[in-house]
């Protein structure tokens, strides 16, 4: 299971509105090759690996991808 931390992994300070850039970032976040999809792939693939270290690092990388938001 996962639990939320009330903080960002890296602080952001948005100084000006930029809808075009926002669109790119939203796609990078939730699009077909975005972090959302990547996190779920890591966290699903870990079930079928036979290597303990790989299962561990897939768990932690998947969690890391989720943590970017």
């Amino acid at each position: 299971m996962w639990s939320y931390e009330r903080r960002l992994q890296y602080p952001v300070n948005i100084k000006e509105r930029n809808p075009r850039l926002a669109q790119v970032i939203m796609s990078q976040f939730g699009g077909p090759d975005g972090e959302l999809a990547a996190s779920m792939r890591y966290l699903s693939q870990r079930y079928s690996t036979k290597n303990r270290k790989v299962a561990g690092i897939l768990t932690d990388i998947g969690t890391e991808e989720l943590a970017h938001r």
Partner: protein
Amino acid sequence: MDKTSREKLFACITATSFVLDDLRLYLDTHPNDQEALDYWRKVQRVRNEAVEEYTKCFGPIYSYDVDVSNRWTWVDEPWPWEGRC
């Protein structure tokens, strides 16, 4: 505690967490690297103290630590995406 010390404490949590997040991935595949283990222990201690202090003074980062002596306050404070956090 004032605004500056809150920011400093929060920056400390951000920085130490980031170190541990990266170090965790390294240690997953290098579980016996003594230098990395020592570094983990050192940063872990600083982070634990900062989180404990921050939670006590400014409220919880984890919902597990919510104090319900009065009411449920977890959703009262601004979320990270609602401003600098």
